């Protein structure tokens, strides 16, 4: 999902379509939306709330955009970092609304994760490349199985419930593949960072 406030948010065109400032902002957001989104996704383990937080973040960024563009020296490089700081607060306030739900991290965990994630922001491309390389090295059938359970509307549990007694096996296979992939990505990243 693209969380851009399309012509300022929700179906309203900009007051003045020639507003350069708005165009710059939308351009920046479009370029860095994925990175900010990944950051937010890491703080909300089930993925619930990511769209809401992203939208809130985009709006808040637009509200504060003047402050940012006045102070930023290297606009592109600093934008993601700045947006992630805002996203962190938005994620926290989302968490506070839902702290009693199952599977929402407590505040201190979100804080810690956000701090770790911010340090990794400029490694996003490396990481994506590592994941792609590792995925490419999986045999085609294993890759296909993994992608199948990640398809929209699918989950191992759902597939398992339809296939009865094989559920545990399927689950274990998928889980093993995920761990395998994760190990591969981690070792790639480790070797990259040791080579500068």
């Amino acid at each position, binding site marked *: 999902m693209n969380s851009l406030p399309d012509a300022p948010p929700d*179906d309203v065109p900009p007051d003045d379509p020639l507003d350069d400032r708005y165009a710059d902002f939308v351009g920046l957001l479009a370029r860095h939306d994925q990175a900010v989104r990944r950051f937010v996704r890491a703080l909300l383990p089930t993925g619930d709330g990511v769209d809401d937080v992203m939208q809130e973040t985009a709006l808040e960024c637009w509200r504060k955009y003047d402050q940012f563009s006045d102070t930023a020296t290297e606009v592109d490089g600093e934008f993601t970092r700045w947006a992630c700081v805002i996203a962190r607060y938005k994620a926290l306030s989302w968490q506070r609304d839902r702290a009693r739900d199952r599977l929402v991290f407590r505040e201190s965990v979100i804080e810690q994760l956000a701090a770790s994630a911010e340090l990794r922001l400029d490694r996003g491309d490396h990481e994506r490349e590592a994941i792609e390389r590792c995925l490419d090295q999986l045999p*085609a059938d294993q890759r*296909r199985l*993994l992608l199948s359970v990640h398809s929209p509307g699918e989950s191992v549990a759902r597939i398992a419930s339809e296939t009865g007694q094989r559920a545990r*096996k399927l689950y274990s296979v998928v889980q093993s593949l995920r761990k395998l992939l994760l190990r591969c990505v981690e070792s790639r990243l480790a070797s990259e960072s040791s080579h500068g």
Partner: protein
Amino acid sequence: MADRLKNVIFQTLQRTVSRADFDWLQDRLEQDDAARQTYLTAVHVSEHLDQQAVDASGKPTPSDAPGADAMSTPLSIGRQTIESTPVMHWVLVAVAANIIALAGITWYARTHDAPSRTERGSVLPDDAMATSSAPDASSSFAAGDSDTTTERLIAGHATLRRAIDIRWPKGNSGLHEGDVLTNGTLQFDSGVAEIDFFCGATLIVEGPAKLNLESDWSAEVFLGRLRANVPPVARGFTVKAADAQIVDQGTEFALQVTPDAACVEVLRGQVEIRSTDTPARQLRTGQRHWLKGSASSASDFHDLVTNDDVQRRRHTAQSDRLADWRNHIRQLRRDERLIALYTADAIDRSAESSDESLRRMFNQVGAPDERDGVLVGPVERVSGRFGNESKGLDFSRTGARVRTRTDGQYGAFTFACWARIDGLDHVYNALFLADGYENGEPHWQIDQDGRLLFSVMVDDTPGTGLGGHPQARFHHLYKTRPFWNDSNRNQWFHLVAVYDPPNRRVTQYVNGDIVGDEVIQPKFHVQDLRIGPAEIGNWGQPLRNSPWFAVRNLNGQIDELAIYDAALDANAIQSLYQQGKPLGY
């Protein structure tokens, strides 16, 4: 320990974690930076898989030798994103079994479940899966780097170009014309299927038929009569039957396979027959050869369907279909719950084709002429979804729009239309949008991810919207799961949005199946519905009296747009789909 951490992380991301494990994970994340790093990487891996999965095609890598990929993933990917089909599950079981058997995850014995039901598209997992010698899973990651590009890929070997009078086996919804076919079994009880393989070969298959699509270059036939047309570019295309291979040298040949006999005849050119126990033999024009059985089980190819026959039969079927559909519209327009019913085809409305009537989208409901939609800008009149004799309207050029006006107040809405989507070019791609988007007015569109979006304005006061932007207004977008991707270009879809304030539900359908169902929250509940000036296929005036307009024209066609002052139920919607679907659906 490391293993437990990874297990619990993935369980958390999949929402299958226990409370105790979740708390354990939180403690680990709080205390241990390495655990946090692992968690962050795992989230990104998981996200990446989600994104890749939307493409729904396992990405072939350069190291995948042709033919090595023998997994049967029999799916028509044309509609994969709509509904996870039972076939998907069988495939997964089959895949899982295969991995268990092959991938060195050795703590399971492979058990053997033959699937016991037919599936949509009549595609069955191949129980007798050929097995590629997959390496041990732990050594799957070779040290070597292969440079891979990340262009979008679609998996498949062939397309179902034309389907005439096909009856699919009981209990499955069949394939549609234009569907991409991946490997797996294709089976139907009667009718004719014309299959174009990506190598250039064409098979015209008469039912009852059962065949297995193996690759771009080969198919195995278990049952059926077919004509294979193989142009020079596809020389080497192979059809297998009765333990023999018919290797085509650039020709046309016929094949009939029954339970006890199989016979091939060369209609033009030359083929080579190979089998394990006899030397290869050449067959030339007019020659016939029995792969199994003998002339006693006489076979005659003189009435075999030709390309021209397919064309003719299709033309007749198309004309019948169009006539049936017109009758359906004549019935439909009597429904008193209809507010409007816009068609590109005049249907009894005006016999003369004056310039003026060519700039209309005809409203089949209410007083003629007053409530027709008016074509504005570069809307093109084209052939519609029932072939050359039918009418269609194409909105693919920027600025194309049909202006409508609908007065009155309503208590519920059902919007239904047929749309052919050739691309989702914009952030929002319009189906039907009210000008101004004021209180109680509807917006119905498709986003770039291929999701349907329906919304009704709750409070159009600037600044009331979520997030506090000075221009934001208060409303809620009801989104479905994605139903469209690149493989669906040029296919028609029946789309429906039901906005039901009395029952506080918004339900959306694609081709008769529910793809989204959401409760209307009290804060978004709107009972007083209106439309006013509105547009089909674009968004006219985002703000009244402003020269600016958003670019939202749909790249494709829209037809049979029905608007009801009622919430139609699933049966009524299924019936609209059945009555309105094009040939070959």
